[in-house]
């Protein structure tokens, strides 16, 4: 099952999705932010966007804040959870690995 963040109603209504699918372009580890026909790839190693287009400014600030800063629960942040899920799904290309 893909790793998908449960977003607020407002973001879901605006058709935002954040997920890691079972088959992705693997290098480097990233999370996909999907809206309509667009996808932004956010690098899980650096926190930077991987592609010039679409323009990252189109992503609502609250969504980026949720992905990068918010806590998922008492034990981990959303970002840590995404990294953990990537590592489970792609053990041959882990976030912390230099390989």
């Amino acid at each position: 099952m893909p790793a998908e963040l449960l977003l607020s109603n407002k973001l879901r209504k605006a058709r935002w999705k954040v997920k890691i699918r079972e088959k992705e372009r693997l290098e480097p580890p990233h999370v996909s932010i999907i809206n309509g026909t667009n996808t932004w790839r956010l690098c899980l190693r650096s926190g930077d966007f991987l592609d010039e287009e679409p323009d990252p400014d189109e992503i609502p600030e609250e969504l980026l804040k949720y992905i990068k800063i918010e806590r998922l629960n008492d034990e981990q942040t959303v970002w840590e959870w995404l990294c953990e899920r990537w590592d489970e799904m792609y053990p041959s290309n882990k976030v912390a690995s230099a390989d």
Partner: protein
Amino acid sequence: MTTLSLNQDKTIVLSRGVTHVRKLAALRPRKVSTIAEVQKSLQEANEPSLWISFEGALTNELLRSVRWPSKSLGHALLLHRANLASMTALQRCFGRVAFSADGGFLADEELCEVLMSPRRGDLLIGGFADDASHTVTLWRGNLDSITVPYSAFPKSGDGTAPDFSQFAVTDCGQTVQFGDYEASTDSILYENDPDYRRTIKKNRIVADSSPGGAIRRLRLQRQLRRSDFSPLTEKTIARIERGESEKIQPKTLAILAEKLGVSPDELGTF
């Protein structure tokens, strides 16, 4: 990248009802719902158009009304259960014919969005999995097709495996679903379409564009370790990937290409 010139004024929808036409309104389609209208549309078909049919009976009527040998009418998207016996006739009339045996297309609203997109060739509109040949055929928004083997969808590290009987295209053509398993359209096109690779390469903000960088990317995409390239050593692979080998010998290149499942010429495109 293959592009299809879809003149939005020339979309013809074959449907007896109005629901589909309403949902495809952004394409400004001409609605054809009777035999007489099919015949009239054919008489007036001076330019290649996109014909979207929701009903087998209307598609059959179209074929019966064509004056043979037919000129190219454009492209056809069959959203009803396809009749394989009609396929050759359809291919004589249309440059591309997208079809499915059991549905497998996006819902009307998302279909419309993809067909309207300037990037439609990079998005999917539907497809099907064929359990007999163990292949998946996917239709792009420009009605071009791509066929990939089941083996292109390996089990995820967490154990999730594709269920090919549960096929769907979602996320406005950006995801292919096989039950609980999801594959990004991007990764499928990246692995199978050199033109797509060339285009997205330009869009990467930071990328190692050396041959070593390409080999590294492909190795990771194939989920291989440096130790999987025997008789080449891990050290050799690492040196090649870091660009420390001045020139990769043809014999080495042949081993790399074979292990990575591409031709030596293709290696640099990743």
